[in-house]
């Protein structure tokens, strides 16, 4: 398929985040889902998802990440994974694990699932459950994690790091080794959605971050060849932003439970955006021409200081959702950048919210 003019120089995307549902038995205080969740009645059905997967593979996507909410809440997950695999896609599952058991893992593996990523809130059960609001969750996660490698799939431990667990980063690494995970992702909470509401309760102090950073770096040599470590320096203490999603509309697309196509999972927080839906327009056309993808694609939209900066095709001006959350305008340079006039805000917020005072936690809530 060709599209006139607009697509010249546009590369095909690499990854699809398929948010199958917003339903989730957990209530994580850091959840990045939007505050207004899609109800089950608006979820795409099996046939619609299968068509999305075919269109994604035709478009050049190579990896699909089944996510949510909790994707295992969908009974057709096996069918969707089998369909994705038949279309030539590499299937990943991003899960809280609490709804899984060995029998279902075997069915998912037989459908073609290659990799399971399990989110851990902490290494200590009581503390994990304080964050997830789900009693008994930790034991269940550990049991499922063991079954994942046992039935022959790759396991990632996703350590979601915030003020209450950041001092236990070594324990997270040990846990990943003990579970025979091939990979650990040390992810500092990103402050969108529910996490932004809870920033004062979650943000670590600078001392905590420095300590974590030292510990992770100290362990890297011994882990080489044994455990792949994906580790991202937390934004609020950084000097230069990350290329959010590899650049807006460059590598990645996200389909929400009700079928909206987003350039990033938090894009719905930006006012004045219109999103196309997979039920109304082919995915290739959305990728090339959708207003939401065009809005911040490339460098033409950039304000100063990005416009005349030599980093602009490296970090693509950082994260739009963060620019919005912190400066009130998504069109601004990401304030994580120390060239941004708003950069001072980060230090203020970090000092204020990163304090040690105990702020109350608001749990993600969702009524069906």
């Amino acid at each position: 398929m060709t599209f006139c003019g607009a697509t010249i120089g546009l590369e095909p995307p690499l990854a699809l985040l398929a948010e199958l549902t917003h339903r989730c038995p957990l209530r994580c205080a850091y959840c990045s889902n939007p505050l207004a969740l899609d109800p089950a009645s608006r979820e795409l059905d099996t046939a619609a998802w299968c068509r999305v997967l075919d269109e994604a593979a035709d478009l050049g996507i190579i990896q699909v990440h089944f996510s949510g909410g909790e994707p295992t809440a969908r009974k057709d997950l096996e069918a969707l994974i089998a369909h994705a695999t038949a279309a030539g896609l590499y299937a990943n599952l991003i899960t809280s694990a609490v709804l899984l058991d060995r029998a279902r893992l075997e069915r998912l593996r037989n459908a073609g699932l290659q990799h399971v990523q399990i989110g851990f809130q902490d290494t200590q059960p009581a503390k994990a459950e304080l964050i997830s609001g789900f009693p008994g969750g930790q034991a269940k996660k550990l049991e499922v994690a063991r079954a994942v490698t046992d039935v022959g799939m790759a396991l990632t431990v996703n350590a979601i790091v915030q003020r209450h667990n950041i001092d236990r980063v070594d324990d997270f690494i040990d846990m990943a080794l003990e579970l025979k995970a091939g990979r650990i992702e040390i992810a500092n909470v990103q402050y969108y959605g529910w996490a932004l509401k809870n920033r004062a309760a979650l943000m670590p102090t600078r001392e905590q971050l420095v300590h974590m950073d030292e510990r992770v770096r100290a362990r890297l040599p011994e882990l080489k060849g044994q455990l792949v470590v994906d580790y991202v320096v937390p934004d609020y203490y950084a000097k230069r932003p990350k290329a959010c999603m590899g650049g807006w509309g460059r590598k990645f697309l996200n389909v929400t439970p009700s079928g909206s196509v987003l350039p990033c999972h938090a894009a719905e927080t930006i006012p004045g955006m219109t999103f196309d839906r997979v039920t109304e327009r082919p995915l290739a056309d959305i990728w090339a021409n959708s207003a939401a993808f065009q809005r911040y694609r490339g460098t033409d939209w950039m304000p100063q200081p990005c416009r005349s900066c030599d980093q602009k095709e490296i970090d693509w001006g950082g994260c739009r959702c963060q620019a919005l959350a912190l400066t009130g305008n998504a069109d601004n340079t990401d304030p994580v950048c120390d060239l941004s006039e708003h950069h001072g805000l980060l230090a203020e917020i970090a000092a204020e919210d990163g304090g040690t005072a105990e702020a109350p936690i608001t749990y993600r809530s969702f009524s069906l």
Partner: protein
Amino acid sequence: MTDGVTEEDRVRLAPGVMLRQDRVRGHWQLLGPERVLILDEVALEVVRAVTAQPQTDQPPVTVGMAIGALAAQFDAPRDEIAADVLELLGDMIAKGFLTR
């Protein structure tokens, strides 16, 4: 901690890793959890050689056997390619695409 790969080692694709041709872009690649390694022609032949399935009942090939096969295939002196192959394999193991 990985010591260097030796010719006596046997390597295989790590769990969750698959060798695939990209049907839109044409190149061969290793796909794994959250990562992709694009293989040039030489790397592709190395991966194929070290993961080759021998006759049933036979143990998997050793790295040394694979080097021998590659030397014959490319009509190249064995010692010249051995060091390069070992280095390439060490790198792929460190990145989690292969395992011993």
